[in-house]
């Protein structure tokens, strides 16, 4: 059991990311996929920071997270009919 000591956060975040990916594939309604995609982004950004404890990894994790969020934002807004409907 010593092997996984200290690795539990990474096992959890990677496992949650895998679970979220399965939920995204299983969910049929696009707008309901997006919260699962949000969980996946959290899990991937967390795993990047846990795997690579380097300041540039923080920038990479944040850039990945913001990019993924912007994509979700764009997909949801496109489904809603675009900004002109507001």
């Amino acid at each position, binding site marked *: *059991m010593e092997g*996984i*000591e*200290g690795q*539990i*956060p*990474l096992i*959890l*975040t990677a496992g*949650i990311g895998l*679970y*979220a990916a399965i*939920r995204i594939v299983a969910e049929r*309604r696009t*707008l*309901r996929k*997006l*919260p*699962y*995609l*949000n*969980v996946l982004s*959290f*899990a991937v*950004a*967390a795993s990047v*920071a*846990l795997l690579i*404890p*380097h*300041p540039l*990894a*923080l*920038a990479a*994790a*944040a*850039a990945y*997270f*913001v990019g993924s*969020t*912007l994509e*979700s*934002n*764009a*997909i*949801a*807004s*496109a*489904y*809603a*009919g*675009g*900004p002109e*409907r*507001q």
Partner: protein
Amino acid sequence: MLGEVIRILAASIICWVLFVTVDILFKLPEKGGVSGAAAIGRQIRADGGDLLGGNMMGNIVSSPDASAGTLLASCGVFIAGIPGGLAAAALVFIGNRICHDPGYAGTTGAVLATFVVYGMTQVGFAASDFIAGTVIAILTIQGLFHIPASRVLGRLWRWRA
């Protein structure tokens, strides 16, 4: 090992309370910040959930909110202590502007989380506990059951109002 699991669970509760409080103080459930967030709220209501809770979930999807701030601040503290957490807050601020979010929930959440996480590392927690804890906390809202989660968030919002 059991101690680490218990610390992660405690960290997830702290993170949940922290970012839900900040998001509700910044009125995330009130309306969708962008049209896509409102559309997610309406979809969740159409499926039997709460519109206001759904709006908040839509807002969390559409722009880095306090939960994202908590995650990135935890990563920042894990990598570089308080300066890392504050750098993460700056990245969240830039991310908010990129996502057309006029609010400051993400930045506020990141700054608060930086000091909370750093404080907890002084009393036996590890910053990595908070990274995993935040992912678990967001899982309970966005990744398990959307309809009950939206009702809980809606109830918290009405309680604040």
